[in-house]
Every structure is written in C-alpha cells, then in structure tokens.
C-alpha cells in the first residue's frame, strides 16, 4: 500500500519503528500536491519548505500522536507564520502571529498547506472563494461541495491524510459527501475555536475530514477539551474513542466480518429514520436508493429501524438563514482594513476607510449575508426575524431531544443530490437548499457524520449522514466505524 493509503495510526507506527521518516512522509504528500493540485486547486498555500523544516523535528517521537504526521488545514485556522485568508481578498497577505488551539493540540504535526474554501466559510461549492474554486477529484467539471471544499478534495485525492475543517450549516459534511470521504461535525462546543476565523458563533464547529472513521477518531481524541481561551468549550470527560476503533480496523479480516457474528454487529441499536427528510422535494432518486440500501444493511445486522418525526425539519434552512447571517454581520464587522488585512490608500475619514476597504475586500455572498443579517437585527425587524428564528431553533432542538428518547441514532442522506457542474446553480436560495439535511443538526448542536455509501450513475459519490445525541460523539463514531467496516466504500477518484 502507498503512504497516502495508510491510516494515521499506521503512519504513527511506521514513524515510531523508523520505517519512514517525517521528511519522507512530507515529501511524499508534497510531490502529490505538486503533481495534482494545479488542476484541483484544493490549496491556497502550500508549505513548500516544510520537508526541510521537519529535519528539525527529532525523529524520535515525543510521544505525541501527531508528531511527524502530515495534515492539511482549511484556511480559516490561524497558523503562525503561514498566510491565512479565509479565501477572502480582505485578508490577502495576512500572516497570523499565533496558531489556533486546534493546530497547537496536534503537536508536531507537519502542516502541508492551507485549503481553499468558500469565502469566510459561506457556501456549498467553493465558487465564492476570492481565489477561484476547487475542483471535485471525481470529475473536475463538478463542484467539490463547500464550504470546506478544498479540504474534502485534498483528502479525496490523497494530497493529505487528514484535514481540519469547520462545519457551520453542513460545511464539513456536505463537501465530504460530494467527494466520497468521511466528514465529522462533533457536538457543538467539543473543540476550541480559539484562532479559528469566526463565521457564526452559535454554529461554527471545528471538525475533521478523512478517508476513514479511524482517522477521524484518532484526530478527535487529540482535539477535544477546554483550553482556557474559548469559553464555549464543554468540559466533558475525556474518553478516548480511537483505541477501540483502530483495534477493530486492525482486526478486519478478508470477509469484513471483524469477528462479528453475522447479523449481530448492531444488536440492540435503535435507528431512527426521520420521515420529513425522505419526503423532501429535491431528494434525488439515486441518493434515496443508496441510503435505503445502507439502512437495510444496518437492519440486517440486528439494528431496530423505526420511522420517527422531526416536524420542524422544513423550517431549519429558513431559520438558519436568518440566524446565521445575523451572526455573520456581527463577526465580519471586524474586517475594516485597519488592524489586519487589506486597507485603502486614501480615505477622507475613518468611516470612509472602513467602507472602501470592505467594498473592495469582501465578496458578493459575504455582502449579501451581512446585509440580510443587518436587516434581521435592525430595529423594527428584530422580533419578527431574529427572535422568531431563535424560537424556531428551540423547537427544532426539542424535536431532536424527543426523538432521542426513542432511538439512539438517526440515519439520513447528507445532501439531496450529488455534486453539480460549475455554474449550474447560481441563484442564492437554490444553493442554500443544499443544506436541507445538514442544517437541522447544526441548529440543534448535535454531532453528525457523513460517510460515503455509493456513487451515482455519473460516478459521483453519495453521502450517508448519521446523527447522534448531544455529547455522545464516541458512540456515534463507533457506530459509523462499524457500519463502514461492514460496508466498505472501495471506489476512488481517478486523481487518487
């Protein structure tokens, strides 16, 4: 097997046993990026010098899980000394003087580069990136999804073993589905967002994109827990999830049974199928069929399948598109071209300086969302829009709480369709509807993961979403892992 086909835990073993050096690993991925990224454009910045830097990392591991391991990072994570732009012109040339907690936690990791995204993480295709879109490795005429489209593409093409991303309304799960990789959004508040460029503070969740649940779990264990900077981090007990999951991977036999008696792998598990998701107009037949096959497979392994109802599902996207732009209008107010980012040469007043810098530096989608948010928060509209949406959000959360007294996990499609061609969807509202299945879990703050479950007639990947109870990230990952071990997704894009 090639180095880019191995699990992170296998890379760790090879590094520890001296079979490969950190430099060889870095070189391997950097040459793949050099070879394939001109076409894919998954990276905004490649850390070309990193292979020489790693020779300063002692090849004896300091005992840290990520020492010497290459990673890639969505360009919303501040990385000290490395450009960080959020794919916006207003942060062109910005080099942070510090690194995000999530970066610091992966001690000794070798950062290969920063990944492209929709500007300020607002979008479902990377088409709003100020630096040009990324391409889907399965077919470059198609979008990779978004906003973490660069990260999903990079992982799918084997340009990085794992990527850190952020998921606000579906920004890890949806591109992972479009690119045939695994994308995990933990419970809101599990991982510190210190040093992560903020989009919507009540939604933004640091998450992970990888090619297997084992790699997701390996990374998750290192990232969780309070850091003294981000006060929204939950102080939950640190129960490592990865050892058990990785052990199952290593025990996998030829017949994918992993020692599980046939028909019993999911014994005792109660799976809920939310009927509103499957009644959604716009859900493609191929996606529906593929998800139904996966559900049947779960049933065949002893899970109890139950139809459940989340009655406010259809209000999730409208509620999201009131609350999230409101938070965007607040979070993007700091981009004034003064303390960081691109400023203007001539300004008549401070106000003039702000307006000119923002006009030139911010893209159309950013402006749209700032203005919608400004409207929803302004006097006379605040109650009808923002407060109403926040109440609907409470009802959506109640739907999940109620359903989770009857079942342990929910299974749905990740997105209503597979990837679409560039330019095919230009109207803002039609793009917003790509979040129809991912937004509810974001509103409720519960963990959710997308795993690949098939490809459509055009060879484009289909994603299966598993949604878990708040703070039960471990249980969700264990279920996702078991399902994938029993139903491996073996297809690879041509670029892999």
């Amino acid at each position, binding site marked *: 097997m090639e180095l880019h086909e191995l699990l992170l835990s296998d890379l760790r073993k090879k590094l520890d046993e001296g079979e490969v050096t950190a430099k060889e690993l870095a070189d391997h991925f950097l040459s793949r990026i050099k070879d394939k990224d001109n076409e894919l454009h998954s990276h905004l910045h490649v850390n070309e010098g990193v292979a020489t830097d790693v020779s300063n990392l002692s090849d004896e591991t300091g005992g840290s899980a990520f020492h010497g391991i290459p990673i890639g990072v969505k360009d919303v994570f501040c990385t000290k000394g490395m450009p960080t732009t959020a794919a916006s012109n207003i942060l062109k040339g910005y080099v942070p003087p510090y690194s995000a907690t999530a970066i610091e936690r992966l001690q000794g990791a070798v950062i290969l580069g920063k990944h492209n995204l929709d500007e300020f993480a607002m979008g479902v295709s990377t088409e709003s990136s100020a630096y040009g879109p990324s391409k889907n490795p399965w077919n470059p005429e198609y979008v990779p999804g978004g906003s973490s489209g660069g990260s999903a593409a990079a992982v799918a093409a084997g340009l990085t073993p794992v990527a850190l991303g952020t998921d606000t309304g579906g920004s890890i799960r949806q591109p992972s589905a479009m690119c045939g990789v695994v994308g995990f959004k933990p419970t809101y508040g599990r991982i510190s967002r210190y040093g992560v460029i903020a989009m919507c503070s009540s939604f933004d969740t640091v998450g992970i994109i990888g090619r297997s649940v084992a790699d997701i779990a390996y990374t998750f264990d290192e990232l969780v827990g309070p850091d003294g900077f981000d006060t929204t981090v939950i102080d939950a007990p640190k129960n490592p999830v990865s050892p058990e999951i990785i052990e199952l991977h290593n025990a996998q036999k030829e017949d994918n049974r992993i020692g599980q008696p046939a028909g019993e792998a999911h014994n005792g598990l109660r799976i809920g199928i939310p009927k509103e998701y499957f009644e959604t107009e716009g859900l493609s037949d191929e996606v529906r069929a593929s998800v139904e096959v996966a559900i049947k497979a779960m049933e065949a392994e002893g899970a109890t399948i139950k139809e459940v109802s989340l009655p406010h599902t259809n209000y999730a996207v409208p509620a999201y598109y009131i609350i999230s732009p409101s938070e965007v209008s607040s979070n993007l107010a700091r981009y004034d071209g003064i303390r960081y980012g691109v400023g203007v040469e001539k300004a008549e*007043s*401070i106000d003039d300086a702000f307006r000119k810098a923002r006009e030139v530096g911010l893209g159309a989608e950013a402006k749209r969302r700032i203005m*919608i948010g400004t409207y929803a928060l302004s006097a006379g509209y605040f109650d009808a829009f923002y407060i*109403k949406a926040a109440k609907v959000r409470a009802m959506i959360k109640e739907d999940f709480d109620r359903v989770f007294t009857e079942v342990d996990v929910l299974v749905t499609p990740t997105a209503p369709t597979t990837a679409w061609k560039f330019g095919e969807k230009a109207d803002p*509202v039609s793009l917003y509807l790509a979040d129809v299945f991912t937004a509810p879990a974001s509103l409720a703050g519960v963990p959710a993961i997308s795993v690949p479950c098939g490809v459509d007639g055009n060879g484009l990947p289909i994603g299966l979403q598993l949604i878990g109870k708040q703070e039960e990230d471990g249980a969700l990952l264990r279920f996702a892992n078991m399902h994938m071990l029993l139903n491996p997704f073996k297809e690879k894009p041509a670029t892999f």
Partner: protein
Amino acid sequence: MELSPKEIERLAKLARLDLSPEEKKQFAGELTDILSFVEQLKEVEVGNTEPVKQISGLAHVMRPDEASYTFPREEMLESAAKKTEDSIEVPQVIKK
C-alpha cells in the same frame, strides 16, 4: 417583502459597505428573494417557546481575573496596513 434600493442603501450604511449602483440593484433583487424564502417562518406557532441563546447549555463561564500572556508589540503591528513605530495609524477620528 420587496427591498427597495433605498432600503439597500440604509443596510449598506449600517454595515459600512460602499456599494456601486449596479450592486444596489442586484442586491435589492437577491435580498428580496432571500427574505421571501425565510419569511415562511411566519407560519410557525411558537407559543411560549424561549429563543435559543446558547445551544450547548453553557453560560457564564468564568476565569480568574489575571493577565496571563502577551504578544510582543512588533508582532501585533506586523499585520496592520498603516503604522508608525509603535501604533496603528488611522484617519482622524475626532474632528476639531
């Protein structure tokens, strides 16, 4: 709910955006569409439901009031567009 270019001007002013005439026209149409889409929330009966403030349930997370670490001034000034030796430079704020 139709958003007029005048309404767009008001929002642009609040958001400190210097929109071109073409942008004002384009956004008036697009924002009207978006608002029409989100207005379906009007249908929802919310009763006595409290609005969500923090979805994780956390509130009032405190720490001791002690200054801990600092960034060197030169490092902080590096990112500023305009600066003097020890400060960020801005157009005059308070007019005489």
